[in-house]
Each structure stands twice: as structure tokens, then as C-alpha cells.
């Protein structure tokens, strides 16, 4: 399941509370102001504004073609925005060529120079800055130590494994100590185990170096693992921005709820409100109640987003259940090891997903295919979505 890592879980005793975006006295390091980018008739980014703060690990998340990579390339200087400004540390970047920008990028393809050794690749940016030779050697050694590649200085990129190449690319992008490190799908080419390990290393590195990282990814687990804040993008716009917990637990729209993790979306109509939340009516054979602070009037069409792990699956009807309880038949089980996902088909044809942690190795009364089961959830479990 999704591991939403907050700062509390961060390694190396990082600050427990890190939320510069909540501090009105701070000004952002990067500021996109009304940025629009059009390629011919196609609008890749539509009037987007975004503020990123120093030392943040910021993720742009979205499906391919949502404009996230274009936004990063605008910051790197490879694309010129059609409209709007990009300000970095108080300096307007529009018109500044990529080779004069204090940002460095780790490319998805790594883009290592094939004719240069690992040392020369990492030293490339430093040489452009006319750094003295002995300082370059010291910095390259430091970088290679940081990414655990000591001793491979003289290898050529084609003599390295995929994981090693990824580290060289990272070391090369970090070597100039940029104000912002841009990571374009940095882990997409690695296998799952290596990816997870590298995610942790990236987080550690970012805290250790005290740098601002901006990552572009289509992998929601990756974004949630590494980032302080995530901007979920769709069709060139940011549909929601927040911490991983906020995005997961309080999705703003049906799109976000569906894109981040697994969800059951129940379309419903508000019928009333009392002190325990709103009452809703839908084609589910049960009265619905959801706790929400959202201002929804009676008669409004909304959706209830219900995460599978918040749905309780039982063989017998829970005694106290008078609402938020449906009956169905198990039509599919996905055993994931730590969790099992049950697909339960209701009488009205709706397929519900419910997750149950496998806390014991052997269960006395396992729920299996074709079993009649009851699904129930608390009013607090569902999120009312108006968009």
C-alpha cells in the first residue's frame, strides 16, 4: 500500500515540522507566475502559478502529457513560456539561456556523455565554471563518495550498470551545487527494489545537502514517498497541491482521488445535514452519511471517495450498522502479501474494492471467492467531492 512518508519519518533527524509554505514571512525560491506554454494549437501549460520554497522536495505528479515535464523544462530554460514569468531567487529567468541558470537537471535518459569517463562527466559542469583543477578533483571525489561510486572514476558510461549510470547522472547534476535540482523521472528505468532504495537515498541526500529538489514523476507512490509537497497536474493545470497526506486523505476532485491510490467513487445526492455530517442518497442499497465541513447544500450532486483500506469487510452484518453498509459477493481477490484487495460486486452491479491487512499468517475464517460479505465504513472514512 501507499507509504506516505511525512517529515516525522525522515532520516537523519530532519525537522519534524517542515512547512515553509505556511510561513507568510518567507518568500518562495521559485515562483511561476501565470505561465502558459503553447506548442502550436496544443496548450501544454495553462496559466499556471506555483511557489516553491527553499529546501523543499517538490513533486510534479500527473499522467504523461499533463504538462509536468514541460513545466520543468521551462524552469531549466529548454522551453520559453508563451506567457508569464518564472522567478528564481528574485531573478526573472525568462530570456536567460539554460547555461546561465543556477539550476541543474537530472535527465530521464541520464544523458551521460558517452565519450567521457565518469570523472569527466561529473567534472563537466565544474570545468565550465573555470574551477581550479585541484578543487574539481576534490569536488568530483566528494560527489562520487556521496552517491557510492568511489573507484569507478575512469569507467565509461557504457561500462556501468543502469543503477550506476543513474548515480553518475545524479552526481553530475549535484556537482555544481545548484540552487534547484531538477529530477525528470529519475528512477523510471530502475527496477522496483532499487527504485525504493534510491527514493530513500534521494530524500537523505536532499536533507543532507539542504538543497531544493523538484521531481517530475507519473508514479504516485514515488511522489508520495519522497516529496514534502505534491502538485497534481492535469491538462496543463494544477488540480491540487498539498502534502502527501492531504492529497491522499483529502483529495479535492474526483480526478485526484482516482489518480492517487485506489478509490471507490460513489455518486450521490445530498439530502440533508445533521451534527454528524451530511446524509446522502444514491443507488446504493443503504443510507449514506459522510462527515464533511464542505459547504454542500441539499440536492447537490457529489461523489463520496472511499479508500479501500477504510472499508471494513465482514462475513456477518455488523450489529450497529444502520447506514454506510452494503452487501455483496466476493468476485475477486488480489493477494498482495501485506494486504489483500477484495473486489465485491453489489446487487446493483457496483464493484467495490476493500482492502484487508493480512495481520496473521493463517486466518480461521478466511473470506474467499463467492462468499456473501458485508462492507461498512464510518462517516469519517469517506470524502465528499463536489468537483
Amino acid at each position: 500500500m501507499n507509504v506516505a512518508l511525512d517529515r516525522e519519518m525522515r532520516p537523519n533527524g530532519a525537522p519534524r515540522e517542515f512547512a515553509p509554505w505556511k510561513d507568510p514571512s518567507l518568500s518562495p525560491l521559485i515562483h511561476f507566475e501565470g505561465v502558459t506554454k503553447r506548442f502550436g494549437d496544443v496548450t501544454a501549460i495553462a496559466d499556471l502559478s506555483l511557489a516553491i520554497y527553499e529546501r523543499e522536495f517538490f513533486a510534479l505528479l500527473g499522467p504523461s502529457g499533463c504538462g509536468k515535464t514541460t513545466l520543468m523544462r521551462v524552469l531549466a530554460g529548454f522551453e520559453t513560456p508563451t506567457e508569464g514569468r518564472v522567478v528564481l531567487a528574485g531573478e526573472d529567468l525568462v530570456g536567460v539561456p539554460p547555461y546561465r541558470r543556477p539550476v541543474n537537471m537530472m535527465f530521464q535518459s541520464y544523458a551521460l556523455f558517452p565519450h567521457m569517463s565518469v570523472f569527466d562527466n561529473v567534472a563537466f559542469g565544474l570545468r565550465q565554471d573555470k574551477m581550479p583543477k585541484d578543487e574539481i578533483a576534490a569536488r568530483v571525489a566528494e560527489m562520487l563518495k556521496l552517491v557510492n561510486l568511489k573507484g569507478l572514476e575512469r569507467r565509461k558510461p557504457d561500462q556501468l550498470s543502469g543503477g550506476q549510470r543513474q548515480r553518475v547522472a545524479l552526481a553530475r547534476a549535484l556537482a555544481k551545487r545548484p540552487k534547484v535540482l531538477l529530477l525528470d523521472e529519475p528512477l523510471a528505468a530502475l527496477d522496483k527494489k532499487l527504485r525504493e532504495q534510491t527514493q530513500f537515498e534521494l530524500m537523505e541526500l536532499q536533507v543532507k545537502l539542504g538543497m531544493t529538489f523538484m521531481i517530475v514523476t507519473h508514479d504516485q507512490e514515488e511522489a508520495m514517498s519522497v516529496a514534502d509537497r505534491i502538485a497534481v497536474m492535469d491538462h496543463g493545470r494544477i488540480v491540487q497541491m498539498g502534502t502527501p497526506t492531504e492529497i491522499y486523505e483529502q483529495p479535492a476532485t474526483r480526478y485526484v482521488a482516482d489518480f492517487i491510490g485506489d478509490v471507490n467513487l460513489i455518486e450521490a445526492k445530498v439530502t440533508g445535514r445533521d451534527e454528524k455530517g451530511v446524509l446522502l442518497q444514491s443507488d446504493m442499497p443503504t443510507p449514506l452519511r459522510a462527515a464533511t465541513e464542505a459547504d454542500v447544500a441539499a440536492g447537490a450532486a457529489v461523489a463520496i471517495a472511499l479508500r479501500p483500506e477504510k472499508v471494513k469487510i465482514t462475513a456477518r452484518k455488523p450489529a450497529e450498522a444502520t447506514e454506510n453498509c452494503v452487501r455483496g459477493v466476493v468476485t475477486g481477490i488480489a493477494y498482495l502479501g501485506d494486504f489483500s484487495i477484495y473486489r465485491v460486486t453489489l446487487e446493483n452491479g457496483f464493484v467495490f474494492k476493500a482492502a484487508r491487512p493480512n495481520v496473521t499468517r493463517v486466518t480461521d475464517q478466511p473470506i474467499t471467492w463467492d462468499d456473501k460479505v458485508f462492507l461498512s465504513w464510518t462517516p469519517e472514512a469517506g470524502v465528499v467531492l463536489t468537483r
Partner: protein
Amino acid sequence: MASNERGLGGRALIVLVPYLWLASFFLIPFLIVLKISLSDDVLAQPPYAPVLDLSKGWEGIREFVAVLDLENYAFVLGDPLYLYSYLQSVSIAALSTAILMLIGYPIAYAMARAPLSLRPILIMLVILPFWTSFLIRVYAWMGILAREGLLNQVLVGLGIVSEPVEILATNSAVVLGIVYSYLPFMVLPLYAALDRLDDSLLEAAADLGASPWKSFWLVTFPLSLPGLVAGALLCFIPAVGEFVIPDLLGGSDTLMIGRTLWTEFFSNRSWSIASVIAVLLLIMLVVPMVLYQNIQARSLEVGR
């Protein structure tokens, strides 16, 4: 086991084909030329001796080998005329290759940077001259470069020169002819190398602080070197032995080795001296070939 052996046999057969080809169309003719170069000229048919007579058996072979000697080599190497021919061939070929690189690189670079939709047309334009006979194109240059030719008419007409310039029948005309004829052989391998270049490498160089000019010298140029070397050798090697262009565009003092060889063979009827020239030329060209192979092998290692 049996199928494995059959598979091996099939593979051996496939490997054998190019070797058979090389043996019958390169090695055997070369051995014949080598043998003639070690023989003596005679007024006979064929115009050299000895001729191998297998009917005498071992005795015949021994007699045959005993008569072969290196005196023709001593003659060719001792006469400054031939040395001069070789030197002039190499210097004209080298100058032409240098000019070809200077002209070919920008053309190939512009082609590789052109919009994708335009590239097939550009490649077409580079190859198009091949559709006309090589000989006719060189003859056309004679018409352009002649004393009363197109070029002089334009130059005089525009008042750039008062008297027609002597271009035809000079070494400059030969260099011009070689550069014109060989340009596609320089452009195409260079284009292939530049086209393969990953754009993200240039973006990475820019991202790390290299200006476009530095990116070119640090990334584009070194990565296009295999193409440049291939193009240079594809032009230099045949240019050294070029016969038609110096014969048609060159003057009487343009002594390129191909022409000298032709004179020995057809005018002097000295097959043995012509063969010596051919063998020495081959040895001269094998050196850059081996160099090229080394660079190819190295670039393969890098490109992998």
C-alpha cells in the same frame, strides 16, 4: 548434438561466403599482380616472363620462382619520377580531403539539424549527382573551367578579371574535381554520425553551463569524429589512386600515381612496372585502412 553440428556447419558456410568472395576477387588477382611485379618485361604475349609451366612439375615451379626478383622494385624506388608521383598523389588527395572536411561538415551538420520533414529531400539532393555518369560530370567541369568556358566568361563579364584565368589543366582543377565528385562520400557518413547524436546530450551540456559553441566542441564534435574519419578515408583512399579526374582536368605536370600507372601499362607496355606501382600504392593505402579499422573498433566500444 547432430542438430548442433548442422547449425555449426550452416554458420561456417555463411562465414565462408565473404572469405570466398575476397579470395576470388581480391586475393587471387592481387597475387597475380604481385607475381607480375616480380617478373621481367619481354616482347611476347603475355608481355612478361617467366610464365608458370605446370607441365614440368616441381622442376618447373623451382625454375619459375628462381627467376622472380625485386629488381623492378629497386627501379621504381630509385627513379624520382615515381616518388614524385606518389607524393603529388598524396598531397593532392590530402588537400582535397581537408577541403572536403571543411565543406562537408557544415553541410552534414545543417542536414542533421534541419526539420525532420526536410531531411529526406536534403539527402536526396546530396545523392542526386550520382544519377548522372561520373565521366559526364567531370567533362562538364572541363567546359566550365576551360579558357573560354563558363567560369571565365562570368569572371570577365563581371569585370573581376580582365584576362581569362588558366584553371583547367592545373592541380587546382584536379582538387576542385575531386572535392566536387567526392562530396557525398564525406557528407553521408558525417550526417549519419551527427543524426545519431542524442539531443538530450546537448541539453545536458547546456544545463551544466556550456555555451552552444562549447557544447559543440565538447560534445557534438568528439561524438561525430568516427563519421569524420570514415568520410575522410572514403575520400582520401580513392582520391590517391584517382585517374579520370587528373587525366581530364589536370595538366601535363599533374603526375598522379593513377596516371603514371596508366602510362606504364598502356604507353610503355611495361606490365611489371605498372604492377610494382600498384603493389606499392596498395601498401601505402593499407596503413590508413588499418588506422581506420582501429578507430572503428574504438568507436564501436564507445557506442555500445
